[in-house]
């Protein structure tokens, strides 16, 4: 079975620019998560979707971050405008029941 796909793998932008990340979960997984992982730390949840609805976005900085999963399959996470502190790896995970399976992540560098 194919795993969670993410693109791009790497992105370098300047502060105040915008960026978008894409995630395609494992087929059939209704739940999709976006995490932010700062170097040396564990992943931190940004937003959780169940099908095309948001379950929890309490940790998402909504003044600059947005995410959508319009058709309940793939998802996009956007940052606009980016700040230096947004430099991190952005991970997408999906689950069917218990357990979450992660994609390779997108490494974002904000200069």
């Amino acid at each position, binding site marked *: 079975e194919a795993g969670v796909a993410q693109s791009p793998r790497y992105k370098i932008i300047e502060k105040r620019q915008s960026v978008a990340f894409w995630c395609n979960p494992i087929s059939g997984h209704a739940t999709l998560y976006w995490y932010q992982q700062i170097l040396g730390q*564990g992943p931190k949840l940004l937003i959780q979707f169940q099908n095309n609805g948001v379950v929890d976005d309490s940790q998402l900085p909504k003044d600059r971050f947005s995410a959508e999963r319009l058709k309940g399959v793939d998802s996009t996470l956007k940052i606009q405008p980016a700040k230096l502190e947004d430099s991190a790896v952005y991970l997408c995970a999906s689950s069917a029941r218990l357990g*979450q399976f992660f994609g390779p992540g997108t490494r974002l560098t904000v200069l």
Partner: protein
Amino acid sequence: GESVGLHLPTLSVQEGDNSIINCAYSNSASDYFIWYKQESGKGPQFIIDIRSNMDKRQGQRVTVLLNKTVKHLSLQIAATQPGDSAVYFCAENPPGSARQLTFGSGTQLTVLP
């Protein structure tokens, strides 16, 4: 807030020896735990999970032990190999969290030749 933490940030073991990675969790009501392995430049990889109604679960070369009395989780890796070098995270599923996971900061395992 409550969070999962790890006792040791780094662990070095000789190739062929057994490794034990420890984790302390703070939410006594958490009912599900996962160990993940993360290699450099990759996403976390699911290793093994355990529900709170169990105290031990074995996989291929790995064993997870859960001690609910002291809120402690450990991952044992038998006959550690160079490919086991990575950062290991434990994660817990707190009650009422809609299957969300809270991660600790990780332990860097280095396998010495």
